[in-house]
């Protein structure tokens, strides 16, 4: 099941050229671009791990692409996303976030039904991949 989180996730995967153009758009607005990765893509998992520090003061997308390629070399089998942080007053939050790398196989989520008192049902989702320990979830390594 293809995971749809953040911007552009209903579109086909962005090419590097398209990613680079998006990054340039962010930089043009003075946002700091971050690279984050995870192998636990649960929709409630907001805290992905950061690849390096947020990149402030960049002028050109090539710098971000360089880091992204480094990150893909190491964590190419996981989800990687870029997020753009706007530090200007009144915003001070993420303005744009999109997935730039995903595993080859995306097993998706199981819907658990938990029956509680009075025939009520509580639902929860669990990632099939997350059954395995961290680092072994998506095939490689």
């Amino acid at each position, binding site marked *: 099941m293809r995971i749809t989180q953040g911007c552009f996730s209903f579109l086909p995967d962005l090419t590097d*050229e398209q990613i680079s*153009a998006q990054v*340039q*758009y962010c930089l*043009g607005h003075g946002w700091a671009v971050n690279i984050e990765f995870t192998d636990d893509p649960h929709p409630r998992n907001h805290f992905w791990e950061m690849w*390096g520090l947020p*990149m402030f*003061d*960049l*002028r*050109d*997308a*090539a*710098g*971000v692409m*360089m*880091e992204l390629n480094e990150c893909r070399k190491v964590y190419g089998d996981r989800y990687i996303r870029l997020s753009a942080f706007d530090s200007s007053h009144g915003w001070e939050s993420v303005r744009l976030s999109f997935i730039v790398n995903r595993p080859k196989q995306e097993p998706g989520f199981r819907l658990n039904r938990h029956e509680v008192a009075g025939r009520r049902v509580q639902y929860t989702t669990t990632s099939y991949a997350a059954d395995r320990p961290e680092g072994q979830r998506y095939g490689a390594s």
Partner: protein
Amino acid sequence: MSPPGAAHSISETPPTRQVDLRHEFNEVGIGEVLDQLDRELIGLRPVKTRIREIASLLLIERIRKRMNLTSDVPTLHMSFTGNPGTGKTTVALRIASILHRLGYVRRGQVVSVTRDELVGQYIGHTAPKTKEILKKAMGGVLFIDEAYYLHRPDNERDYGQEAIEILLQVMETQREDLVVILAGYGERMDKFFASNPGFRSRIAHHVDFPDYTEDELLSIADLMLREMNYKFSADAREAFVRYVSLRKTQPLFSNARSIRNALDRLRLRQASRLVADLDRVLTADDAMSLEASDVLASRVFVKPIGE
């Protein structure tokens, strides 16, 4: 956000067979930049020639691209060698704007660094630090001043070597994203290149900045004064001619920088001369002119016995 031209125009329009060179030249607007270079930078013949050559190459390269005559992106990494105050930094700034106009670099910013900003203080500190700088310089020009400090021959465990390796790698693989300019004093740069052959071969343009002649130094002084809205009186200029020829023979002479410093000291003396006589009416002309006495009060004219 991306600059006009670049990738799109090639695939969409059929290849051009004929190009009006003059029109192309004017359109890019480098003529203006080159003229400005000629006007504002005195002397530096070999440097200007080289910049013109590079500009022509890039212009032709642009046109060739439109004609679908593809070739590799030319390497533009440069090394500037020359004595102190010969204008290396100034030229580096100009180069960036020329390359930007020609569309060779996308943003045209200059990130000027020295060893401190590239090399870390403990193991594992250097690589992120160097990369940080490289990322900031992407799309523009990375200017490394006094580059020979990166290599410390007396200490083989110096972290400078690590920075050099990262630099070399990026210079090779991301040629279209970044232009690296190394600058430093002639002899020490030669030693630096001798111990880092990788650097020498990756840099296509070695530009040597000659020392200025006395005439050139005077024109530089005139230019600086004009920018600061000052002028020499006739005998002050004469005195300054003598000042330059004397100063040139003294140790620690650093070309245009020495001239700038001398002019700053002249302004000080002029100001205190004017302030010494409070009961006069000061005209704009008075406030602008530097007198011979301002020049002659310099220490250069004192016989160097007492020093």
